[in-house]
């Protein structure tokens, strides 16, 4: 039912109903924002990417076919945008590292804040665990991270992840298996003794 109305809105948008776009945006922007946030690990970049995804959706409205599930189509646009953003970021980083190497003698020493020293005495365990999980997910290879985010946080089935990432279901299964093995390894200290 929910997805049918997405399709109806897309068809409306194709006919020039811009109000349909606003409904689609308000309905789906939070999942897309969180996909981008968990994949890129940065709020500002995630917001820029969300804007980019919805602009692409608007521009590609004519190519949408109602036989394709709307969310799968949207996640495919978003997944491509995520991978492109990462490539652009790596390009920028490579350039800034070159600049840093060139200006190495004049570089200002980087101040690293000791977060543990300023942490409150009573740690908020939930927040701490959230940060730890975030660090572990951030440390996954790109394809594994995207597969985990789509499957675990966006609730996409293996088949839907495969469609979004343009992979086979077997490839997704393999990516998720390796990702979860790696996460489990990193989370070992937090798992009960009997399940390690």
């Amino acid at each position, binding site marked *: 039912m929910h997805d049918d109305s997405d399709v109806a809105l897309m068809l409306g948008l194709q006919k020039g109903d811009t109000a349909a776009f*606003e409904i689609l945006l308000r309905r789906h922007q939070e999942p897309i924002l969180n996909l981008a*946030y968990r994949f890129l690990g940065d709020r500002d970049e995630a917001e820029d990417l*969300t804007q980019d995804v919805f*602009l692409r959706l608007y521009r590609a409205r004519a190519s949408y076919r109602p036989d394709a599930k709307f969310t799968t189509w949207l996640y495919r646009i978003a997944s491509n945008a995520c991978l492109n953003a990462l490539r652009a970021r790596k390009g920028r980083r490579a350039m800034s590292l070159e600049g840093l190497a060139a200006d190495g003698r004049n570089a200002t020493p980087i101040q690293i804040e000791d977060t543990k020293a300023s942490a409150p005495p009573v740690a908020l365990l939930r927040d701490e665990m*959230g940060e730890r*999980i975030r660090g572990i997910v951030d440390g996954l290879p790109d394809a594994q991270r995207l597969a985990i985010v789509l499957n675990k946080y966006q609730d996409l089935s293996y088949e839907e992840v495969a469609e979004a990432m343009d992979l086979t279901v077997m490839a997704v299964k393999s990516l*998720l298996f390796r990702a979860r093995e790696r996460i489990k390894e990193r989370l070992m200290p937090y*798992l009960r003794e*009997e*399940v390690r």
Partner: protein
Amino acid sequence: MNCDETRLELVAFADGELSQLEAQSVREHLATCTACAALADGHRATGDLLSEYPGIEVRTKTTLAILDAVEREATSRPRRVVQLRRWLAAAAVVAALVTIGSLVWHPHIGGPSSAGVLDDPVVLDIVQNLDLYDKLDDLMAPDIGSDLDLRAADPDVDDTNDREG
């Protein structure tokens, strides 16, 4: 299913992604193997811990920025189409002028069709005297080829003048 086969399926099993038959095979193995059962619990617990990663909420300014960008896109599109049409019209005028210019300077371009070619007195003369023109070609051929082919074929031909030139 043995332990190795089962372990490869544990993540998909924890995610509910196995077929009924595959899931049943895993369940049967886990019922008899405590080591694999512990690993399955580990994957389930990892899955639970993963859900601790907090998400973020949409800020109103982000929504407004997207709506604004799309509105700008929607209003700028027709302008682009108008610009494109103007460019196409200008290109068509230029193409027409070039064609007319070519016809003025080279009137034979785009001239008579193959049927009309025979109306040309020069062409008609060639067609009617083909034998004579063939003989003329034969007479002229050695002279035309002397500078090129004959010199290559005869090593005694003196080409010093050419080299000095």
